[in-house]
């Protein structure tokens, strides 16, 4: 199983972290593919919800945006944005959230707001939070899918759009957050997970990847877990579903970022 793309590695490994019955706050693109892959393999009862207000979507085509009409037709429920963020997310009815951003730091803080030193005068202005600030705080657990690149993994983000581990479980509880926060960062090299202090450490490598690769592509002194795992090889079945059923034209599969 050589020549896997970054997208394939991340999507399949993210899919495997989802459990049957999970209620997942889905983003478009790779998270959407991961959810649909899980639903067609080990998690048939996974419920996909979208910040646009769609619950239990069964999209007939690959949606370009989280507000695509294919998500609505045949969904279980459609509700207002206020309801999604209150009754669903804040109330604790969302098991899993996916997060992403331009920068992710040592403690899982994510920056999707701006690059630079002064908020009022951004060097590069990014889109901003959208739903991310609340998803990171209130979904029971969060995953991040990102290519493993040094510029994406600084020691400290320029702006905290969504909160990371806050020093681990106690820190988040003290801050009054209901969810566990970013408990897995899935990259194209391996998987980072928070240690008890909340610092992201390398806990798994994909087959054929090395600890050095991971360390060299991380902006802080990345620690390696005592019991470093190797992720299970990606199967032909998983790849088949991805390429033949979910993204036949390869819109998100060929995209490495």
């Amino acid at each position, binding site marked *: 199983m050589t020549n896997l793309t970054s997208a394939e590695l991340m999507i399949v490994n993210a899919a495997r972290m989802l459990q049957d019955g999970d209620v997942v706050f889905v983003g*478009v*693109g790779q998270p959407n593919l991961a959810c649909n892959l899980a639903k067609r393999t080990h998690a048939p009862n996974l419920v996909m919800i979208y*910040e*646009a*207000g*769609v619950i239990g979507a069964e999209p007939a085509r690959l*949606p*370009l*945006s*989280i*507000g*695509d*009409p294919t998500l*609505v*037709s*045949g969904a279980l429920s*459609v*509700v*207002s*944005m*206020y309801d999604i*963020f209150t009754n669903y*997310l*804040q109330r604790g009815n969302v098991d899993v959230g996916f997060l992403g951003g331009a920068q992710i730091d040592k403690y899982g*803080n994510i920056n999707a*707001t701006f690059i630079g030193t002064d*908020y*009022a*005068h*951004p*060097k*590069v*202005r990014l*889109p*901003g*939070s*959208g*739903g*991310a*600030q*609340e998803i*990171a*705080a*209130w979904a029971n657990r969060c995953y991040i899918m990102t290519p493993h690149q040094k510029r994406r993994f600084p020691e400290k983000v320029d*702006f*905290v*759009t*969504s*909160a990371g581990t*806050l020093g681990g479980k106690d820190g*988040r509880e003290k*801050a*009054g*957050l*209901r969810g566990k926060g970013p408990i897995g960062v899935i990259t194209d090299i391996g998987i980072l997970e928070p240690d008890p202090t909340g610092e992201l450490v390398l806990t798994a490598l994909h087959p054929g990847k090395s600890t050095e690769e991971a360390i060299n592509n991380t902006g802080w002194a990345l620690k390696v877990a005592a019991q470093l795992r190797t992720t299970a090889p990606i199967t032909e079945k998983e790849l088949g579903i991805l390429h033949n059923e979910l993204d036949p034209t390869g819109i998100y599969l060929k995209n490495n970022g």
Partner: protein
Amino acid sequence: MNKLIPLSEAVSQFVHDGDSIYAAGFTHLIPFAAGHEIIRQGRRNLTLARATPDLIYDQMVAAGCARKVIFSYMGNPGVGSLRIVRTEMEAGRLEWEEYSHFGMISRLQAGAAGLPFMPMNQTGATDLEHANPLIKRVTDPYSGREVIVVPALNPDVAIVHVQRADKDGNAHLWGIVGEQKEVAFASKHVLLTAEEIVDEKVIRSDPNRTLIPGFIVSAVCHVPGAAHPSYAQGYYDRDNEFYLNWDKISENPETVKNYLDEWVFSVKDRDEYWQKLGSVTHNRLRVKARYSEKINYGSY
């Protein structure tokens, strides 16, 4: 009361220089026709509020209508950067005020409810709170813990596109109903555009579907196709191709100017715009029917 007037008249009567505007719709039912009419009528110094500025505000900012944007996600949804708004922000030529989606929609909910503020639970991410002084804290008197609060947003004008309304402005919406109801109740004036104007009997056949009552509406305009390149669930598809094209068009001020000249200033109204789109686009956006199961209200 019959409030049916042409869109040009509604914009001329209810949208003024310096107003704060909220053009509603989360991806769905975005009122592009009204946005283009505002550009054509040359409004200036508007404050443009929307969770996602989307292409509609990118175009209005490009046309020089705006002094300020209020938003929670400034991107081209599903594509990437919203180039014009971003450039103007980076250049310091456009004021902005920023929230998370939940903060934005909580501001609208407070505005709709007639409350001064809405509470939200803490998120542990405090940088935005420090960047935006309108985000404050209040102590929950039951637990002694702090909650985050945002102030009511009460725009001068809500612009809302709906699938069907009667001439009084009683409106049925379905599919993604993001923040339309909240925006309508929060605003001082509601300018409604509709795919179809239907008899009041159609509205009264399904009162649970009526999210906006006519008596809070200032003007009703019959504008089929008003949401393109956004979509109207059951009427036409989202023009994803155009969303991708805009990414190219908006790279260059010249191509933006040409776009506005050709598609906004040189067309009289949405009818002409829709005809100009042509049959290939019409066919691409056409949708096969898929009906809801009826329900029985009973005759009492």
